[in-house]
């Protein structure tokens, strides 16, 4: 049992559920306290001691089913079919076994002469068989199976390891010997049938076992894949479902940053003792300092101006970036957001309402202020900004530009960006393209780069959160 639990722990770990040694020990302790006959309680006990995240529960449940329930049931089914065939001959397994033993003894042999596997097969001893299959599969390395095409291979190897061919010869040999020593024709036929049935059942069980191994491994793979990729996956290829789940991830990341912020702000409050104010405030206590006052250092929160390219090629990046920024609203004094393709328009007002998600979708659609069905023209957009909104920028403003700088061979008008840069505290450009592609084709990133304090590739959530981290901290 102990071994099996350890094995299960390993499988949980492989699927990305963190189980520490201390937790595994807790699991053992909990099983000391409970009877493990009740499957539900057993499952809950292992879960509560080892799985500590709500999101992991579905994965745990699946794995638990896979691991603890039944291979034994599979075996019983397979061998049940094999022995059921006997009834057609009007005898049951026990009867036949007795008869066999008699005959064997008469001819000077006994069942004990057979190999372990052959004996287990003949007596349909499921516990022994399960043990044998598990051992053989372990030696054959079934745990390393990776895809469906390998099921045949590993099944074969497991069978070889078990020595099923040997057992088959033994059993056939036995049948022949018994027939020679006076088994009736009907009995002989029944025996033959039984042996073939048992062999087939063994083969099928091994295959089933291998498939289960594959499922376990596959499960690990799928889980890991799901979790890691969302952070790593490029914004360019996201399905609807992924966009939905991504939103949750963004929310969680934003929450994390908020936590860090709150600590930092509190630390700032713990300044030095402000002697002047303390004395003054405690005059009413006769100068005895009941209330202490500390000097507070001030930390100015940045103002943020976001310029978002919302052309279809980068819409997803804009989406998450806007969500990120507006989830962190309190970290900034003010956020003004503009969207552009060729025309540029302000969409700050859209975000006055409560629901960030809906506002973002509206903004990405042009927010009734710009036409999104044109070809990108960064130069024109920056020029418009320079003409109409340059006053929005002062020396506390961080300007965040998001776009691929694919300008369709229009005039880049980099001087507009230069002026913006001169007025702002910082200018950060996030480009969803790989830096090696910047400046090639119709990309004018190289022309804009000199005017950026920071130009970064931002292709997935991990990069995005790293940049946001740097912006605020």
């Amino acid at each position, binding site marked *: 049992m102990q071994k099996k639990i350890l094995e299960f722990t390993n499988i949980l770990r492989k699927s990305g559920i*963190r189980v*520490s040694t*201390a*937790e595994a020990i*807790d699991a053992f*302790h*909990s099983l000391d*306290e*409970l009877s493990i006959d*009740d499957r*539900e*309680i057993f499952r*809950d*006990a292992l*879960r*509560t*001691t080892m*799985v*500590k*995240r*709500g999101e992991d*529960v579905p994965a745990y449940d699946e794995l638990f089913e896979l691991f603890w329930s039944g291979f034994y049931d599979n075996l019983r089914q397979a061998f049940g079919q094999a022995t059921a065939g006997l009834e057609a001959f009007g005898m049951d397994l026990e009867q036949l076994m007795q008869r066999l033993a008699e005959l064997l003894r008469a001819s000077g042999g006994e069942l004990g002469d057979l190999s372990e596997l052959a004996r287990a097969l003949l007596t349909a001893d499921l516990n022994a068989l399960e043990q044998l299959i598990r051992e053989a599969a372990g030696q054959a390395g079934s745990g390393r199976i990776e895809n469906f095409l390998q099921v045949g291979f590993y099944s074969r190897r497991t069978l070889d390891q078990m020595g099923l061919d040997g057992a088959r010869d033994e059993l056939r040999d036995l049948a022949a010997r018994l027939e020679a020593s006076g088994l009736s024709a009907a009995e002989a036929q029944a025996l033959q049938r039984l042996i073939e049935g048992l062999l087939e059942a063994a083969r099928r069980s091994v295959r089933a076992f291998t498939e289960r191994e594959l499922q376990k491994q596959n499960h690990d793979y799928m889980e890991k894949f799901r979790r890691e990729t969302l952070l790593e996956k490029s914004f360019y290829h996201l399905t609807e479902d992924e966009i939905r789940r991504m939103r949750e991830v963004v929310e*969680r990341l934003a*929450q*994390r940053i908020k*936590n860090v912020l*709150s*600590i930092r702000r*509190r630390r700032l409050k713990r300044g030095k003792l402000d002697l002047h104010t303390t004395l003054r405030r405690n005059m009413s206590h006769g100068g*005895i300092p*009941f209330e202490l006052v500390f000097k507070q250092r001030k930390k100015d929160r940045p103002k943020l101006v976001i310029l978002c390219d919302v052309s279809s090629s980068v819409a997803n990046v804009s989406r998450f970036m806007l969500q990120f920024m507006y989830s962190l609203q309190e970290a900034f004094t003010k956020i003004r957001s503009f969207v552009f393709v060729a025309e540029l328009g302000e969409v700050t007002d859209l975000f006055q309402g409560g*629901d960030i998600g809906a506002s973002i979708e509206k903004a990405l659609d042009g927010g009734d202020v710009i036409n999104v069905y044109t070809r990108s023209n960064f130069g024109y957009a920056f020029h418009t900004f320079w003409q109409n909104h340059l006053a929005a920028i002062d020396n506390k403003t961080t300007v965040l530009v998001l776009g691929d700088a694919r300008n369709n061979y229009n005039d880049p008008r980099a001087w507009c960006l230069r002026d913006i840069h001169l007025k702002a505290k910082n200018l950060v450009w996030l480009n969803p393209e790989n830096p090696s592609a910047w400046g090639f084709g119709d990309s004018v990133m190289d022309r804009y780069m000199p005017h950026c304090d920071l130009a970064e590739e931002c292709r997935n959530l991990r990069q995005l959160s790293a940049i946001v981290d740097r912006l605020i901290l």
Partner: protein
Amino acid sequence: MFDSVEKVRQSLAEQAYICDAKIATVVFLANRLEKPVLVEGPAGVGKTELAKVVAAATGRNLIRLQCYEGLDEAKALYEWEYSKQLLYTQILKEKFTAVMAGATTIREAAEKVGREDSVFFSHHFIVPRPLLNAITSDTPTLLLVDEVDKSDPEFEAFLLEVLSDFQVTVPELGTIRATRRPLVFLTSNNAREMSDALKRRCLHLYIDYPNAELEQRILDTKVPEADKRLVEDLVAMMQRLRELDLKKVPSISETLDWARALLALNASELTEDLVNQTFSVILKYEGDVRKAQGELSKLLQRKTAEAEAQAPSRAAAPPAAAVKKGALH
């Protein structure tokens, strides 16, 4: 104490808390292993309630520590009573003069006072907060750390020390060890992920929205006077609502509120009007109400269709009753 999982369930049920085997198992283990329990789950599924009923069922004293942003050791563990200390120094001024009498230098005077300073840092001047109370209590206690996700990461780290050893160190007094280990419940709404270190030290319990059968049993226990049919309708409606993409999904506490509200209105069955009037009890956002209304009419239509299909004779009955009623007038 509890000797089996089933026993836990029974004693919780006696406290009018209906739960499944999952919750009972965790409570049982927490009792046996003396480990803290971290209860997570959406708001209003009865996390805090669980701690309360466990306290009642085991006869423990409930000590509650409500977490919030900015909660620190001084408010959770202990605090020196600064004003009291000051007050005493004022009152005892003359005594001090007496103590210092005979001292010729400042150093000598300071030494003399120093010999007495432990007076001011003794149990007399300490204000115990929930954590210290839980540890020093002579009677068995249950410590409920509510909404631990609202606290700051530093506080969480500090909590770790308390939870693993059940001892705290007050520099002036030394280490205080728990005479009786309190049973600890921490609840979290998942506003932020708790650290792995904390999770490792706790048993974990995730309470989700109850399934229909469980919800019905909860309603039967908590609002026994409600009509059986009404309860069924209510539960069906709630289960449907939870599948919608709502901003604030109504949970079991809302179901109970709703049942009580409907009861106050003397309802014995859900009708569209009635639901529309009382939607505000379960849905807290305008957008959610609008979404739910569409769903509601669908559900009620299906219900009437089913009722008609099942009992066409009963459907025909009301007119007759109406006639009778009319005859009375």
